[in-house]
Structure formats: C-alpha cells, structure tokens
C-alpha cells in the first residue's frame, strides 16, 4: 500500500522526465474518472461559476432593484466609483487590520492550546472538548453573547477590567468597538486554529525532538529549531484558512455594531449596497473586488510562507 502511494507520487512529481505513453487500461481508467467527476464539475459550475459570472455581468450596469426601468450599461464606471471612494479604502483597511490582528493573536494562543492538547496526559478528552467548544457555537450567537458581555448596562467585562470605568461604553467609539469585535472573533475561532496546529504538531517526529534533547537543546531551541520548521506547512494552512475566513468578517460586525463608528468591513459594505440599498450594479462590482482581494490575500500568504500547497497535503 505504502509502496504504491510512493510510486504514484514519484511518477507524478518530476515534470522533466520523458512521458511514457499511457496504457489502454490507464486511458480507460482516466476516461471513466472523467465521466465520474463530470456531474460534480457541472454542479460546481452551476453553483459557483454562474453567480460569479452573473455578478461580473451585473457590475457593468447602473442597476437598482427598485428602479428596473432605469437600468443602463456603464462599463467599468462602478469599479472606478468604488476604487476612488474613501469609504471603500477605509473599509478595506479596517478588514485588513482585523485580519492581521486576529490571525496573529489566534496563532499564538492557538499554538499554546495545540501544545496543551498534544501533551495533556489526564482528562485528555475533557480538556480537548473544553478548548474546542467556542468553535461549535454559531457566530451570530457568540456575537450576541459578547455584545451583552461588553454592554455598559448589564455586561460583566467592565467589572472585570480595573482600567475601565463601570459605565464605559464599548460601542461608543471606533477603538473600543473594534476591540470588542476582535475579542469575539478571536474567542470564536482560536479553537479552529489550534485544531489545525494540533494536526501539524502530531506530524512532528518524536525521534527528532528526542535527538535534539539528547544534543542538549533547550525547550525553546527545540521549539524554534525542530518543532516549528517541521510544522511550516500546517502553520501555513492554518494561517491561510483563518486569514481568508477573517477577511470576510461579517456576522460579528452585523450583530455587535451594525457597522457603526466606522467598524464596517468590506463584506459588510457589499451587503449594504446589495441587500439594504438594492444597488445591484455597484454592489456586484464590490463583490467582484472582494473576490479579487481574497485571491490577492491568498496569493500573498502562499508567497510569504514559500510553501508548496501539495506538500501541505502530504503529497510531496
């Protein structure tokens, strides 16, 4: 079994090696494979590609749902409007800031949790479950819970923090509002990060750690020289997934501030244009820009970590 896996991997990997013509059986298997995945591909195109193409098409129009007769073709005008509007850049900056801060904090806390889950000896199931519980809670519910927690009237946060007054209004201004939103976000998704990191931690060979220990490496040296380099792929996947997730932040903002005090994210701006204002043209342009910016974020993360995605899937 192991041998065949290795053989397949090696056969696929080197692109430079001369290609041997496929046997009839391989051709037949490939044809069958194509037939088997065809329905899935068609379905994917219908549910994914169609809305994207439709959004792309609509973004070229000045089109309000409540004024269908006035629909007119404006070319790329909606993109120019969006990209030259300070509101778009303010919301983009806000979204990037939330993404960077939450992912950074979650990476540190998530790694600590992963270490605890990996090494814990007693009450293993209980501890793992406790750490993972927040991720099982629906984001809207956790948003409401944190909104109540930060409330100046009946929340407990003001009582716990000695440096804020008892009636401090967390949702009164930008700084404190965005902190409250990020706390909720971090609480909710750190378990997801720790779960991915735990999987990476389990891949690190105990022999290597043992060898480093024998060589006299301290705990920090083992962490930096052995554990983290061997977890690079897992960390990259965790950061990539969470960063993309954080970039489309919507629920917490919707529940906690409804975009007040400039806490709007780029997806919230898109939602307001399409759902609240019924402006399908500019709203579609924003959703296309959102899609493109997600691609840019994903590309940058992959580049920064210089990790081959196939190695992250253990194919290399």
């Amino acid at each position, binding site marked *: 079994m192991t041998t065949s896996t290795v053989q397949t991997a090696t056969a696929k990997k080197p692109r430079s090696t001369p290609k041997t013509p496929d046997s009839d059986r391989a051709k037949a298997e490939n044809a069958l494979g194509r037939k088997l995945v065809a329905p899935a591909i068609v379905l994917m195109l219908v549910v994914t590609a169609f809305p994207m193409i439709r959004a792309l098409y609509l973004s070229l129009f000045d089109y309000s749902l*409540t004024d269908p007769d006035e629909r007119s073709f404006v070319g790329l005008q909606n993109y120019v409007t969006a990209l030259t509007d300070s*509101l778009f850049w303010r919301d983009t900056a806000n979204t990037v800031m939330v993404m960077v801060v939450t992912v950074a904090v979650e990476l540190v806390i998530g790694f600590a949790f992963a270490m605890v889950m990996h090494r814990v000896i007693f009450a293993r199931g209980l501890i793992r479950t406790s750490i993972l519980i927040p991720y099982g809670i629906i984001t809207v519910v956790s948003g409401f819970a944190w909104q109540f927690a930060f409330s100046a009237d009946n929340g407990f946060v003001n009582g716990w923090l000695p440096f804020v007054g008892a009636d401090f209004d967390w949702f009164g201004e930008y700084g404190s509002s965005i902190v409250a939103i990020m706390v909720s976000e971090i609480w909710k998704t750190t378990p997801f990060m720790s779960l991915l990191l735990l999987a990476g931690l389990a891949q690190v060979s105990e022999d290597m750690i043992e060898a480093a220990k024998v060589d006299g490496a301290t705990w920090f040296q083992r962490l930096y020289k052995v554990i983290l380099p061997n977890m690079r792929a897992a960390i990259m996947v965790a950061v990539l997934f969470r960063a993309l997730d954080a970039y489309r932040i919507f629920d917490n903002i919707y529940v906690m501030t409804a975009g007040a005090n400039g806490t709007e994210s780029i997806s919230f701006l898109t939602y307001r244009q399409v759902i609240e204002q019924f402006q399908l043209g500019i709203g579609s342009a924003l959703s296309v820009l959102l899609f493109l910016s997600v691609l840019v974020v994903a590309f940058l993360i992959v580049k920064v970590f210089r990790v081959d995605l196939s190695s992250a899937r253990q194919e290399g």
Partner: protein
Amino acid sequence: MHRFDPPGPRRRRALAGLATLVCTAGLLSACSGDDGGRTTFNWYINPDGQETLTAIAEACSTDEYDIEIQLLPTSATDQRTQLARRLAAKDSSTNLMSLDPVFVPEFANAGWLAPFEGDLADQVVDEDVLAGAAETVEWEGDVVAAPQWANTQVLWYRKSLAEAAGLDMEQPVTWEQVITAAADEGATVGVQADRYEAYVVWINSLVQGAGGSIVEDTEAGRDAKVTIDSDAGRAAAAVIQQLVDSGATQPGLSTSNEGSSLGAMYEGPGEFMTNWTFVYKNYEGAVGQPGGPADEEQFRDLGWARYPQTVEGEESRPPVGGINIGVGAYTEELDLAQEAAVCVTSPEAQGQLAVTDGLMPSRGSVYDSPELQEAYPPDLLTLYRESVDTGGPRPKSAYYSQISSALQSVWHSPTGVDPDSTPQESAEFLRAVLDGKALL
C-alpha cells in the same frame, strides 16, 4: 395476527417516509394558500398592535379566504429588507403587507405592488381619507396601497413648564421659542436624533417647515433635483445647532429615539418633546409607574400643541407616518386579496386600532366616531387630524432609502451640524450618491 405485528425496520422506514410526504404535502398546500378549496392570504405585519390586527384578520376572513398573520422584524429597515427579498423573488405567498409609507414608492416602482383599479381604487382613497395619508399611497397616478392608519407628530409638553416659561401654547410656537423656554427653565427638548430614519423625519419636517424640501421632482428617480442646499436647509440646520448649543438637550442626544425621550416628561421641570401619537396612551397607561406620571393630576399636566414652526409665521409641516396595506403583485387570487385589503383598512378596523393601540385613523370620519371621542380628549383628536391632513410627507422616491441614508451620514451627529456647511455638503453627497458616483 400477522396484520398486528409491529412493523419491521424496512416497513418503519416506509411509514416514516409516507408520514414525511404527507406532512410536506400539508405544508406545501399551506404555503400555496390552498386549504381545501379556501385560499389563505398571508398578511405580513409589523409588531405594532398585533392582537388587534389578528382580530381584524379573523373578522375579515370569509368563506372564500382566510387571512393569516405573519410577523415582520421590529426595525423598519429589516421589515423592508424582508419584504423586498420575497417580492424580488416573485413570491406568490406574500399577499398583504403592512408598509411604512416611505417604502411605498420604491416597492411600487419595482412593480411589486398590485395597483387598486376602478371601484376598488375609489373605495381605498375616497374623500374621507385625510390628504396627508392619501398622498402616501399614490404613485405615478395609481393607487398602489390602502391607508390603514396614519401617524403624525405633535409637540408634547408639561403645561406647568410652558406656563413657567411664559409661553402661550394656544398660539403656534417656533422651535426657537421652545428651545429657549426649555433652556431658561432648566428643562429639556426631546427629539429623535439617533442615526436612523426618525432623524430624517425630523430634518424633513424642519426643512419643509421653512418652505423647502430635501429633493424635488422625485418621480425622475436618479435625476431628481436635490434642493436641500437652500435657505430652508440652512434654517433647519440652524434649529439643530441652536438646540445643541442651548444646554436644553437630553443626555445622549446623538442616540436619542422615540422611547428615550419619554422618560424626561415627569422628571424635574419636564420637557418639550416632538413625538408620535402613541404618547398619550403610553402615559395614560403608566400613571403611578416608573417613567410615567406620578398621579392623575400629573397626567392632566400633559399638554399637546401643533408641531413647532421652523420659521416664525410659516405653518409647520408635521411628520406623516403610519401604515399602508400593499397587495403583492405576484398574488394568485388578486381580486380577493385586494378585497381583503379593503376590509382590513375599513373604518371599523381603523377605529379598533385607534382605541386599543393608539394607532390613529387615516379616515376623517373615524375621528368623529363615539368610541374615539370617548377614548381621547376632543382637542387632541382635532390636532391629530389636522396634523395628518396638513403634514409634510418624506420624499416620494424609488431611491428614498439612499436619500435617507445619505442624509443621515452627513447630518449625524447633530453636534456637528452647521448651517453654513451641512446643507451644502449633504446636497453634494446626495447628488453623487444618486449619480452612482459615491458609495453609501
């Protein structure tokens, strides 16, 4: 014996499947509005006066159809969004809907409301319907909804406060007089200045009270003329600035709403407050309770007057609100649904809503009915009726939501309003928004 054996796993699965099928079929038939030959119309209502509306729905159900109540969310924005999403998807089960008057033009323009035609149109808007209310249901020459109840704002105040300040409330008063009187007496002026629709209601009435408007030629859609950058716009901004600078503002002015200003009436010297018609029934039912009048005598100290003037000598234009009943354009049994809409907006139904829930009628004759005369002081009824009749509606535009949001974004917070810059800035921004050249 065999027939009474407990069903095996396969048979159980088959039975469960059959049961699911039957239930689903039942649900589907309920959705499609066909219940054994009788049609079911869904009436989407906002949460005001639920019990009375349920009773009205039952009373208006006939042998041919049942009217079933469906509840919309509390916020007006969410109500609009939910209805719009259904209608944009051509939902045939959205039959009757309670609509805030400002949403009528955009829903009608989108083709989501079935116009009342012929006799039905004459029944829905006849001479008995107050002019302010009738104006809110007409779009491009069609009657697109039926007025059910009409809301308006009046000036509520403590008689003792006005007396102490030497204000003659028998005569029309101006905002300036009211603000100065409140400031002199250490009292407050209650308004709605949170960043939401009611703030636009206030701004609109101030502008109209000075003889101007926010936009004109609204039927031109995006090409409407933006006219807020005018003397009237500056007069409106001056009132807001005067209130902010007077020291008569209530705590949390920039988040104040209809409810938050209620509590100041019976605290200290009291307040002057512009608010909707529900205030009277609210205080009447709160005698001896926290936030309400301490006793009957204090309740009798509650005074009411016409909405204050923006400019001295120029008649004020009180806000007009309320609810109109629209009929979904995709309704299958349209004639019956419109018949149902006429029934739920009948004078009897309107009287019931006014007496029980303080939701005032849109028909003049109902104000004269014995039930209403008994439930309200006669001069208050006259004031309500006059206010609705001569009130100033908000812009009737398919782009109202954008107009409102654009205004909120420049005029909020009230502490930053400046007559020299705010009207001009909001006019430029609104123009850019309507032209699709600025994000909102």
